[in-house]
């Protein structure tokens, strides 16, 4: 066993410095399209190339609805006038309801949060990214975040997937079994809007149809840093982002 201890020590620390410092390593995030002013000739063709309706033209602007964007890159590749692209990862947004009424989780949770993960029909990529936050590069334990095996100990429910018909009951049971105060974080485009799958006969249009959602993390899948950002927003250690670009008060499907 000694050689393993030595191996571990020799590897050193690879963990990101986020949230104290921004992470700039290449490949940590796929980025998202940015809304922009309607001053280009090809603007309509960019909007019409979006297969999920995430892009729309609104009052001389292209607006991006992140609840619908699935990272297909059709608005940026193989066209003359690609849309602008942002390479950040602080994408998580607090929902309007809880922003108005204050957060349900109090100050006591700021540095200790226990998380229960429910797979409500995710494709595997979101779950893989959730697993990464528990691994050396992101290591959420340093922030006081832990995955717990039982909903009875959980403060936050992390849900990925469009909520398939067969997962409705297990998800509801897990939510009901959690003690109050409790929060729900929806991870990934499917959990926000149903993504490419829902709504249909077999899956819903996202988690908020079934249980109240506090934090929404867009992305297909959201990179691990975006999920960490979502958890930090949950405990008010980081500011909420917007689910539309450009940020606006009036637009967006349900939330600011």
């Amino acid at each position, binding site marked *: 066993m000694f050689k393993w201890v030595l191996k571990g020590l020799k590897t050193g620390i690879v963990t990101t410095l986020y949230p104290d410092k921004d992470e700039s390593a290449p490949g940590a995030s796929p980025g998202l399209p940015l809304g922009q002013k309607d001053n280009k000739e090809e603007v309509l063709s960019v909007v019409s190339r979006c297969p999920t309706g995430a892009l729309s033209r609104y009052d001389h602007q292209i607006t991006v609805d992140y609840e619908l964007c699935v990272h297909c890159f059709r608005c940026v590749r193989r066209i003359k006038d690609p849309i602008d692209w942002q390479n950040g990862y602080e994408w998580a947004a607090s929902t309007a309801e809880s922003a108005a009424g204050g957060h349900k989780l109090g100050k006591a949770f700021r540095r200790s949060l226990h998380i229960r993960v429910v797979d409500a029909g995710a494709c595997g990529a979101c779950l893989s990214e959730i697993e990464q936050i528990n691994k050396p*590069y992101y290591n959420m334990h340093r922030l006081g975040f832990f995955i717990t095996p039982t909903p009875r100990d959980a403060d936050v429910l992390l849900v990925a997937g469009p909520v398939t018909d067969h997962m409705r009951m297990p998800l509801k049971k897990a939510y009901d079994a959690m003690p109050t105060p409790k929060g729900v974080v929806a991870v990934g485009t499917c959990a926000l809007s149903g993504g490419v799958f*829902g709504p249909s006969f077999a899956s819903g249009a996202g988690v908020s149809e079934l249980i109240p959602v506090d934090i929404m993390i867009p992305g297909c899948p959201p990179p691990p840093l975006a999920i960490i950002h979502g958890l930090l927003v949950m405990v008010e250690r980081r500011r909420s982002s917007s689910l539309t670009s450009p940020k606006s008060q009036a637009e967006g499907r349900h939330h600011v």
Partner: protein
Amino acid sequence: MIELNGNNTLIFSDLPEVIAKRWHGQVRASLDVKEFLCLIECEASHVPDLCNWLFSELGYSLASLIIEELPSYWLLRYVFYGEPGSGQIHVSLQSSKSEKTIPSISRFVHTADWFEREAEDLFGLVFEGHPRLGDFVLHEEWPEGVNPMRTAFDASCPYIHRELDPDWRPHRIVKAPGAFMMPIGPVFSDAAESAHFLLETVGEDVIRTIPRFFYKYRGVEKIAEGRSIGRALLLSERFSGTSAFAHSLAFCQAIEKIFRIDVSVRVRALRIILAELERLRHHIAAIAAICNSTAFAVATSQASIFEEEALRLTCTLTGHRYLFGLNAPGGLSMDFSEQAFRSLADAVYKLFNKLSELKEMLRFSSSFLDRLEEVGIVSRELAFAYGLVGPIARASGIARDLRKVLPYSGYENIAFDVPGEQESDGYARLRLLFSEAEQSVNIIRNVALSMPDGEVTPPRFEVTPGSALGWAEAPRGATFHWVRIRGDGRVGRYRLTTPSFTNWHGFHLASEDFAFQDFPIIMATFGLSNAECDR
């Protein structure tokens, strides 16, 4: 050349003649030499006999059962594939719409067991002679007689649930003093995918495993119907995010075959690189999961570091960590520079060196090996009977790999080995993951450093109705995508056969007769995805 049981061989091109003689001209067989395909058309009564002959005497495996509801008849297609050089065989059966009974082949070809159960649930067809039809894909809250894959079913609205009997209890087979049932799932204690297992036991050993899947059934085959090709491509990538590239490749190859699109040599080479990069990343993640299942913290951390490095490498090269948004019918959405290939070749080589070091350290960690060796054994005979695919089959001595058996995308021009193991246990599967990762690294380096020139932009193509089968060796094993395009250029049928579906069928073989504490380890060495299985 097909090796028969015994020492005889059969030439592939002789098949139609042999079949005509054997069934006295009642079964029609024709050859498509270019596609290396033998199409057999026959009556329902001949299907079991014919499939039995192909499976037990000619050594073919059942790849998929494709069912289509066409306006005037049912079309069933049993797809078989075998060793390199034995091509593929499609047994096609037309049945009138009023006929709902089809003879079951599962008592001869056990692989068909789950295919037939699935078809009974989704199409309402009855497979005569099948011992266990009933709730499978659709759980008990679905009303009887509702079959979502029928063309008349409206896929856009939710269905009405039926009332369930609250006193219902699962049927117990193990009856002994102290016998009990242990439920696991559908929600697991970590970030595992949803599935349910009922384990029957009298104490320490798992005597019977009753798995229940399709908690994640999103009806992908149904919601693809009537969609445009571009929209169906999104589904093919996103129904199983951890093997997105392999599945979108199989889909694109089916489309390319229907519209007879020529794919440039550069696109073929690029697709090989990206598919192997996905395999490398998947295998590293599977190795990390196996280390994690034995609670071996340092090894898990090491493998997890490599996994994140592979993800970042993929994202730096392609813009996405899971290779979404790359494949398109006839081409790719982006091209790469010579510099990018050189740095990719360097990066995978470095990753491989670190992985080899980990392998050597694990090889001499006896406490770790104790958990894997002689655990979760699937014998070669049973693996063949269940038609298992991918690393699991190859660890049980069945060295079938679609890249060699039915080469696609230019794999026939590339030198690589298909590693095999004979021990059939958890450790054999771990070793196999390491050897396959090594092969993937070699392929990436060889192809990246001799990249042919050419155009990668998808060409414009004329849309014509038709159907074709596309396939790929996904990281978890063989996947087959059957696509039918309607006259209006939209998808008429999209049938997905995935390695996780095929392999979960045989999972109970590995988990039975082992202790409870081995169960998570056996699951990790199988490394299957429920999203890929449930669709």
